[in-house]
């Protein structure tokens, strides 16, 4: 492992006001969008570290995981305070994301990366299309109050999975009942596998699955996912920590950046329409699918397409 750190990589960048400012600024943007959409933002932080500090991938991934937990602590707490997060729903789905993460990390030993990357890219394209096609649906259903009238399955009823939040952009309190416990469980399992196997993509899959299959308003899905990301990333990073591959010197500027960005994001999220959030999520999922395809082609066929990081 030693060869991926320090001298052999060449340039060692030291702390200067300008590098700290660049990392802080980049991490703030990642934290902002991460909080807005309920995702981790590792997809932005890793290229940032690779581009600004010319770090090897593994070092960047380990550091970005810590920054992702920091955004979850910051963003997650704000959404809990605003009562947008559904804590019971988070706990219920965490059963499946944590089991999925374990399954994913074991699968990683037996499966080839490029196949999984292509499968998840296809899944993301499908979800991106759905998110775009249903972009206006949330606002319409909020206005009509139909999030509260869906038919619950027996699991959701038994666990009292329902809730309400005040939607600032719609200017009204939105009641909703959770449906589709089984489908939600399966997609959460897949999201867990994605994060255990590939290290990315868990948040995006969870948000769109909750919104699409479980009758969860977009903002509740984002807030709930934002909280859930923390525990998954914490488990992953604890392993890195024990293995001794976390470069603590990197963490300061990016963790402060993602924390500030996430806090700002939580102030904006409830003020914008669900349609805007879903359009932004669509763009992000397409970019994510593209970078997965890029990686798969590179691993399997050695074809290099233009990409960040």
């Amino acid at each position, binding site marked *: 492992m030693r060869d991926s750190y320090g001298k052999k990589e060449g340039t*060692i*960048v030291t702390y200067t006001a300008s590098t700290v400012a660049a990392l802080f600024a980049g991490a703030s943007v990642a934290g902002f969008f991460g909080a807005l959409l309920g995702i981790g933002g590792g997809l932005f932080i890793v290229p940032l570290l690779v581009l600004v500090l010319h770090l090897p991938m593994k070092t960047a991934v380990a550091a970005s995981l810590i920054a992702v937990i920091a955004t979850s602590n910051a963003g997650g707490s704000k959404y*809990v305070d605003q009562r947008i997060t559904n804590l*019971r729903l988070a706990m219920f789905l965490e*059963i499946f994301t944590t089991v999925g993460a374990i399954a994913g990390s074991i699968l990683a030993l037996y499966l080839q990366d490029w196949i999984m990357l292509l499968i998840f890219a296809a899944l993301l394209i499908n979800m991106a299309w759905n998110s775009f096609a249903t972009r206006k649906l949330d606002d319409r259903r909020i206005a009509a109050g139909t999030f*509260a009238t869906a038919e619950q399955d027996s699991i959701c009823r038994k666990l009292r999975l329902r809730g309400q939040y005040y939607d600032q952009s719609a200017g009204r309190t939105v009641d909703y009942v959770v449906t589709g416990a089984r489908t939600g469980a399966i997609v959460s399992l897949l999201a867990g596998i994605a994060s255990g196997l590939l290290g990315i993509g868990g948040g995006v899959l969870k948000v769109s699955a909750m919104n699409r299959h479980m009758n969860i308003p977009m903002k509740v899905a984002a807030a709930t996912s934002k909280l859930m990301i923390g525990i998954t990333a914490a*488990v992953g990073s604890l392993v890195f920590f024990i293995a001794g591959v976390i470069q603590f010197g*990197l963490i300061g500027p990016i963790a*402060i950046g993602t924390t500030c960005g996430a806090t700002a994001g939580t102030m904006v999220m409830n003020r914008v329409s669900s349609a805007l959030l879903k359009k932004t999520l669509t763009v992000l999922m397409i970019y994510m699918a593209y970078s997965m395809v890029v990686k798969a082609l590179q691993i399997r066929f050695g074809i290099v397409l233009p990409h960040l990081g």
Partner: protein
Amino acid sequence: MNLNPQTGSGEVVADDIVYSAVYHILVAGMMLATALFTIGVILALARPGGTPFVLDSAHPYRLGGMLTGLLNADPISFMAVGTIVTILTPIARVVVSVVAFLRERDYAFVWITLFVLFTTFLSIGLGLLGFRT
């Protein structure tokens, strides 16, 4: 008290104890970690001779070394302790949720939360055994 009004079947879905417990533990972890990171960055910028972002040896710090590092105003030690606080915060969130669901007598969710805690520790254990988690 911010009780949710009754909905549908006439059940109150409040969970005030859980919301308050989760909120407080997350905010405490976030503030402590941010303070440690901020001090670390300021010390790193101020240190004569410069502080490298990446050290040759990835993990020269043991817990005892980190604590003496705090006393010696070592920037990396501040960021290392900040990192530990950051990682433990979400795990602490799950632990306090168990207690909070117990206090709400919501036993189904006590079991669910305990199971999540169990898989969390299981994956840490598997990670230690060499699985990539």
